[in-house]
């Protein structure tokens, strides 16, 4: 059982740092088109932010905000977003994961592939985030 870490410095530093870690994780996910980054890296950073709160604030406080069962559910939703993007392209007449067939009106084929990559990256990020958190919760649970 991870209990609250009673140290003013660590607790305050965690409070200041964690929002920035989460925002940086989202930035890494969404900016993967233009710079190194993407779903895997951003999801890992998001998971690191939540795990830091788990370590510092203890399980009692953080399980209320983010229940441990939510990890695997988020992972499954992420995988579903990925597979769903591929299936939508398949149903719209293209091959599986051929984003140029995504039914987004008003934009050309290359732009549709841009948004297809974005959806897929979000799915990967949710999957990695949920799975890492679920593994941490599984390893740190009490008997």
């Amino acid at each position, binding site marked *: 059982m991870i209990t609250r870490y009673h140290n003013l410095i660590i607790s305050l530093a965690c409070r200041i740092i964690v929002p920035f870690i989460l925002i940086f994780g989202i930035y890494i996910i969404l900016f993967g088109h*233009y710079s190194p980054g993407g779903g895997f890296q951003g999801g890992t950073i998001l998971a690191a932010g939540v795990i830091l709160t788990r370590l510092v604030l203890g399980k009692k406080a953080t399980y209320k905000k983010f229940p441990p069962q939510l990890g695997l559910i988020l992972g499954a939703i992420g995988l579903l977003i*990925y597979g769903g993007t591929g299936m939508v392209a398949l149903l719209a007449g293209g091959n599986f994961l051929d984003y140029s067939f995504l039914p987004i009106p008003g934009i050309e084929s290359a732009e549709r592939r841009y948004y297809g*990559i974005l959806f897929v990256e979000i799915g990967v990020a949710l*999957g990695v985030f949920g799975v890492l958190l679920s593994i941490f919760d599984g390893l740190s649970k009490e008997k």
Partner: protein
Amino acid sequence: MKWLGIILICLFAGLLIYAEGDISSYGDPSSPASIHVSPEYIMRSYEETHTPNMVTAVLADYRGYDTFGETTVIFTAGLICYLLLGSWKRNDH
């Protein structure tokens, strides 16, 4: 049995050393890896996907099926960890 293993290892080592002579040197512009699909990606990935980061375009678009498999592997690993470490109570009856 022990000698059979040693002979097999020597044979495979010889095979690998023999095959190593045909590997093109690292970064060779005329190697098959550099003349088959790489120039296509480098020339056309921005026009086709509007994504300046070529790595992301290859990872999520051209090789999307591969990345789908990777994500499935990660999710399966998480599922197995959950099943092994478990967070539900088993009914003893």
